[in-house]
């Protein structure tokens, strides 16, 4: 063998050996399972996997995943208790010293800020920061501005928002820390609206431009970094002082990876590459995942439904809408779409509400559905079913389309990108006939459902949330009247239940599920350490290892 050939052979052997070594290292890294720490109290880092977030800007974020993170970062005047179950819906003081005093006419709310509050950059939190947060929402056309238009002067400000403009209904005093909010009309849900993250104070003058993870925080954590569509990191806010109602978080650091694929996210937890995932585990893997990790089932207030535009044929006929409700096999859909992790429903409200009264107006009956379609003369009517390009939405809409075809309609499916779905179906020019939708509660009050989704007075030509374009004089009037009720007394709840039944008898919707969400943990997290806050999900304050 010549010298050159010998060197060539030797280099080849070394290259192969190096490649094999790298492969072995890669496989062993992939298969590494996390070991339980020797000190069970230590909890240096939580590695979480979320499927997606929209923003990390308090005046912009409007997804459950974003809010799960931001509840621990941006505090509001009022917040919710860090406890399990219905008690977690109780409003408690956050940045405010106490619950507000409310005038007799329900229009004036008076708060006082806690003393000594600081942002994560060390700057003082002052009363006017709250006003700036509301103004910033209007300046940035944030997704939550609609909640605050009942503040006196807000509508005028919204028409021509400027940084130096004023919302006359918010009066602040930085010396005393007082915040007075005057409403144009009383709202029974206003306290819960104030607890939304949209109203989290931010330093005065913070630019209305979207700022993901860079706005100083007031909560137990702050954002350390954000890599769009990839990851973000939360670390402790050293200026945060825990209170009776807002405890410190347990993990020192929370590393969040954004992984869109549910299978991958689930496998990461099983493999020990992540501690927690909120991904929608595929139905056929749920039982398997439970055996390989810790599955916590969380039932928050949600309703999945198919809306039917009462202005578009054939759904402008009541019998057709009722036929659809009769035709859907809600029980079977829970298995098909969620692997059984859901409860069939015919209600608008989920069962977590005190005003919930179970409805069974449309027991599954395909024969009756076909008869109603015949009676309505809608046989062969062309229908386009709209849905968004997300697995469960496509699956449920596919099933829904087949149901419509089975009762005599001529239905086809139209799948839109996730990012543009709601704006498209909420635009009157689309003339969308029927489609998929869901609503996860923003705050625990029936107004968050009926006023937003089914009040004819709130219908807009664009960005409309009432996808059925449902309007009815009786129910509209009753919703407006119930808006003023300050407290959800049994009598008020009974009126809400009556409104719901009246609406469902008109069948603008075909509700089909209250979903139960799987929260999946690695086995290194003991089951007793996993606690759920009904509104915001896994509670970092009580999570342990």
């Amino acid at each position, binding site marked *: 063998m010549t010298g050159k050939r010998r060197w060539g052979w030797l280099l080849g052997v070394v290259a192969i050996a190096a490649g094999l070594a790298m492969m072995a290292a890669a496989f062993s890294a992939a298969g590494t399972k996390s070991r339980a720490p020797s000190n069970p109290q230590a909890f240096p880092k939580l590695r979480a996997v979320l499927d997606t977030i929209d923003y990390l800007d308090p005046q912009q974020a409007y997804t459950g995943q974003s809010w799960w993170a931001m509840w621990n970062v941006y505090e509001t005047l009022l917040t919710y208790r860090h406890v399990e179950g219905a008690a977690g819906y109780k409003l408690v003081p956050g940045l405010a010293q106490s619950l507000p005093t409310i005038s007799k006419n329900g229009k004036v709310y008076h708060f006082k800020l806690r003393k000594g509050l600081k942002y994560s950059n060390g700057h003082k939190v002052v009363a006017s920061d709250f006003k700036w947060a509301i103004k910033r929402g209007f300046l940035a056309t944030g997704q939550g501005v609609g909640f605050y238009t009942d503040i006196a002067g807000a509508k005028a400000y919204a028409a021509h928002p400027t940084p130096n403009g004023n919302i006359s209904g918010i009066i602040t005093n930085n010396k005393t820390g007082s915040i007075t909010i005057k409403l144009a009309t009383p709202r029974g849900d206003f306290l819960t609206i104030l607890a939304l993250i949209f109203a989290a104070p931010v330093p005065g003058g913070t630019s209305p431009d979207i700022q993901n993870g860079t706005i100083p925080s007031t909560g137990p954590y702050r954002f350390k970094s954000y890599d769009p569509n990839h990851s973000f990191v939360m670390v402790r806010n050293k200026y945060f002082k825990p209170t009776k109602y807002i405890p410190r978080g347990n993990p020192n650091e929370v590393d969040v990876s954004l992984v869109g694929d549910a*299978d991958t996210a689930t496998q990461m937890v099983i493999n020990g590459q992540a501690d927690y995932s909120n991904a929608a585990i595929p139905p056929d893997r749920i039982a*398997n995942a439970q055996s390989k990790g810790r599955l916590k*089932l969380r039932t928050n207030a949600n309703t999945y439904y198919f809306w039917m535009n009462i202005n578009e044929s054939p759904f402008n006929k009541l019998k057709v809408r009722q036929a659809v409700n009769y035709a859907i096999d809600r029980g079977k859909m829970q298995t098909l779409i969620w692997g059984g992790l859901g409860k069939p429903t015919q209600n608008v409200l989920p069962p977590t509400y005190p005003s919930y009264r179970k409805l069974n107006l449309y027991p599954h009956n395909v024969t009756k559905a076909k008869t109603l379609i015949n009676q309505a003369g809608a046989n062969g009517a062309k229908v386009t079913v709209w849905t968004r390009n997300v697995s469960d939405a496509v699956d449920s809409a*596919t099933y829904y389309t087949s149901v419509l075809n089975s009762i005599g309609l001529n239905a*086809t499916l139209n799948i839109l990108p996730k990012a543009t779905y709601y704006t498209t179906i909420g635009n009157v020019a689309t003339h969308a006939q029927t489609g998929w939708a869901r609503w996860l509660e923003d705050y625990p009050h029936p107004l968050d459902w009926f006023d937003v989704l089914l009040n004819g007075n709130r219908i807009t030509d664009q960005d409309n949330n009432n996808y059925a374009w449902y309007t009815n004089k009786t129910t509209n009037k009753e919703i407006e009247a119930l808006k003023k009720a300050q407290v959800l007394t049994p009598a008020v709840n009974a009126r809400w239940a009556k409104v719901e039944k009246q609406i469902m008898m008109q069948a603008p919707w075909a509700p089909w599920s209250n979903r139960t969400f799987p929260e999946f943990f690695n086995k290194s997290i003991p089951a007793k350490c996993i606690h759920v806050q009904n509104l915001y999900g896994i509670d970092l304050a009580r999570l342990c290892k």
Partner: protein
Amino acid sequence: MVEPGATDLTLDSAPLLATEEHEAAIIGRSPWYLAWRRLRRNYVALGSLGVFLLIVICCSLAPVYAHHVAHSGPNDVHAGEHVRVSGKLRSVVGGGAVYDPKTNTFDVKPVVYLPPTWWHANGRFVLGTDKLGHDEAVRLLYGGLNSLKIGIGSAFLCTFFALVLALLAGHFGGWTDWVISRFFDLIWAFPVFLLAIAIGTALQVNGFHHFGINIEPGSLWIPTLVISYVLVPYVGRPIRGQILSLREKEFIEAAIGQGSGPLRVMFSELLPNVASTVLVLFTLIIANNIITEAGLSFLGAGVRPPSPSWGNLIASGQDQIQTAPWLCLVPGIAIVLTVLSLNVFGDGLRDALDPRAKVRLEH
């Protein structure tokens, strides 16, 4: 009669010589006949053609299979049904978590989808079911039908437009060639998939309703037209190159000299001489288009669910890849077999038509 041993060989004497030597008359053969003779000796190419034709026939018989064997349409949801497999009654989709209202808890159990019955259920659910209870075998055949329609249809359109543009560019040259070449360059500059996804997604929302043409959002015409549009340069440029070289040949000059107009020159002189190239490219572009369609459908920009195609079958099957991997594998294998058979046949065809030709699709 030529004296044996004579060395003079003229055109007049050659047939006589051949007859004496081989007792058979020389018959002039066309290039097509010679190509066919070369092709029929290429058993691999013929075998591949046979595989492709078998796939086409099977997919074409999808309605027959669905109606007479599986008793299920491609979009029929059988989720709540039961079927007898080897005498045992089984749920098409069963299991799943069970809710106990008394304790308000769920007993988590696995969801069980009917696996392949392999003809033990009288032809129903031969390849099992997906998460919505569809008959996968029926969807595979209908998916193949849609994929082949789009692949072959777009190949026709793409080749036709590419040929027309290439003929115009190659024959006229000058400004015509410049404009058409820049048009090719413009489309060529975009990555094929990105351009196809952008156009396909935009058209899928509201369809196409312009210039008197009305195409509904879910129509197969949309992916067909999108794919044929984005791949025009990939067929047009090789043909244009060949025409440019043919244009300088003497027979073209002769035709022009005899008073032939541009149309006659293009279609009577140039076109027959590029026909073999066009034929090979057409075969290869079908395979390319089937892959493109599968990719677009996988990404949601091609055939729209619930209409099946091999690409969207793979996409919908990936959720169950751990428990039912055949839902992804079988359509994937179908794509591989189809594309491979077309490519091998296309190579054989190229060798047969002109063994010295270097015709290939370049991306």
